């Protein structure tokens, strides 16, 4: 197992390296002089040159890259160019909680919706549950999350006036009930696409397991149906579903930009979109890097769980 963990981590290093280079270059290649932008219009050439020297903007690209990476590793993502003196890491950190809460809540809804329906669809092939799953997964793939959100707002908030159309209540400071009232629509619109996908994956992997020999064996032994589904089949099908949950979490974090903007939630998505207007590239850089790294880490955890659950993978 130790060897497996080490191998997994080693294969990640090139990806991490490339991600950091891409994110670094992306922002570095922006048109315009960052020093001139920070100082404003009335800066003299000398001021700009001085700031250049101070920030090390005249150094070769590779030196700048190494300096940037070592700063990032210490949790220092620079200072904002739009809000003077504000540290980027503080900005991102203070906006992270709403996004994280929303992502977790939407994943919970997704799992609760998708896995039971997926199992049901696998058991009753060709019946109503199966058909609903197929239609829903088609819709889920075709509807962007913000359209799902707009539809939900029109129906639930505007037509039935059941839930608020926008706004944010924090889970820890405002309590659970307000949080649920405000976050259910965003969580649903964020999770719906993924619920459809997860449903489909649960269905296919369950079907695969259910047709295997040991399930037939269990059936012929007279094991009860719910024991077969719950104990024998789902445990094996769950590995595939696990990957889908991991992907879902990442797409909930990444897709947050659109949903947060739609429901005016002060998360990192909103921060990122606002930073585009303010040309605050440091913030955009930090958020992109953060989520890409989270993606890599979550994928690593899933890989390790795979290895833990299925010894065959470790030996590969």
């Amino acid at each position, binding site marked *: 197992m130790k060897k497996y963990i080490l191998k997994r981590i080693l294969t990640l290093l*090139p*990806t991490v*390296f*490339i*991600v950091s*280079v*891409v*994110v670094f270059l*992306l*922002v570095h*290649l*922006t*048109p315009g002089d960052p020093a001139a932008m920070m100082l404003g219009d009335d800066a003299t050439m000398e001021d700009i040159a001085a700031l250049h020297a101070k920030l090390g903007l005249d150094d070769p690209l590779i030196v700048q890259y190494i300096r940037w990476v070592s700063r990032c590793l210490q949790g220092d993502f620079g200072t904002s160019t739009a809000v003077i003196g504000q540290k980027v890491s503080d900005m991102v950190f203070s906006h992270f909680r709403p996004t994280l809460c929303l992502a977790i809540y939407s994943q919970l809804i997704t799992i609760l919706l998708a896995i039971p329906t997926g199992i049901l669809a696998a058991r009753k092939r060709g019946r109503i549950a199966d058909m609903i799953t197929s239609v829903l997964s*088609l*819709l889920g*793939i*075709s*509807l*962007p999350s*913000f*359209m799902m959100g*707009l*539809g939900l*707002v*029109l129906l639930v908030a*505007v037509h039935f006036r059941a839930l608020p*159309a926008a706004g944010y209540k924090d889970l820890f400071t405002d309590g659970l009930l307000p949080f649920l009232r405000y976050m259910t629509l965003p969580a649903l619109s964020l999770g719906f696409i993924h619920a459809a996908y997860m449903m489909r994956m649960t269905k296919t992997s369950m079907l695969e397991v259910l047709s295997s020999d040991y399930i037939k064996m269990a059936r012929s032994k007279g094991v009860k149906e719910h024991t077969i589904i719950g104990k024998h089949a789902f445990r094996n099908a769950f590995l595939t579903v696990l990957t889908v949950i991991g992907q879902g979490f*990442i*797409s909930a*974090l*990444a*897709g947050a*930009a*659109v949903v947060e*903007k*739609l429901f005016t939630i002060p998360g990192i998505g909103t921060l*990122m*979109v606002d*930073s*585009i*207007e303010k*040309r605050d*590239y440091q913030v*955009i*850089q930090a*958020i*992109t890097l953060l*989520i*890409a790294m989270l*993606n*890599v880490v979550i994928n690593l955890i899933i890989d390790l769980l795979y290895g833990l659950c299925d010894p065959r993978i470790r030996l590969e």
Partner: protein
Amino acid sequence: MQSAFSTDTASLARIRKELVREQRRVNLRRFLHNKLSVVGFFIVFLMLLLAVFAPVITGALGVDPYTSLGREMRLQPPSAAHPFGTDNVNRDVFARVIYGARISMTVGFFVGLFSSLIGTAIGMYATINAVWDNILMRICDGLKAIPNILLAITLMAVLGANMHNVILSLTIVSVPGVARIARSQALLVREQTYIEAMRAAGASRFRIMWCHVLPNILSPIIVQMTFTFATAIISEASLSFLGAGIPIPAPSWGGMLKEARSYIYNGWWMVVFPAIFTGLSVLGFNLFGDGLRDLIDPLSGR
């Protein structure tokens, strides 16, 4: 009967032609048999028609996506003269939705085309050279580690919001996926006996790649292109919705939804129609792509 067994080239060619035609008939029947993919095809066809003939359609109704119809026409619900109603700056929503098809289809088409060309070239080149294979595939992994929409937003933030940059950044986002598919398909084809025979006959790598591998990996790439088309429509709409895509006043569906967001309580038609068209065209391309994929590989997607 006898001619079928004779070896003269003329009749062989005729038999081959007959076989090809038969295969086409079978394919067409299989495609038509899957009702959903036919629906998909018609949606795609309709959207492309709307995109091409947008000026003709709106011209016939005497409406225009940009001109204000005057103060008294602000936020009017759907009527005979304005089937999709009017928006907050007194413009006809129908005309804007129709012109929106033009923007979405243009973005989808060019992103699909460019990412297929570049992705195929990268994927195939990776199979020739082991060193470049490693480098190119690691770069693809790295790019794929950044979630698509996030990478697109970042690129748009850096490049600046306009249509060319939307196409450019969505192409960059889509290339790694195509490259992966092209590479894995090319690797499969390269193992085939006929490629081995070509190599034994002394054909150059370049010739094998262009004349023998490429035609055999085209179908999965074309299928992928329809899916890329669909995702490009969603991504463009999302970017424009965030204000990082196609700038207003251009009538892109995402941009229209961004404006409609503020009028959700008193102008539902501003939301509903662009949303329906976006969803419908994405659905169309997905269904069409599913149908094509089932043609190539009847076992997939089941």
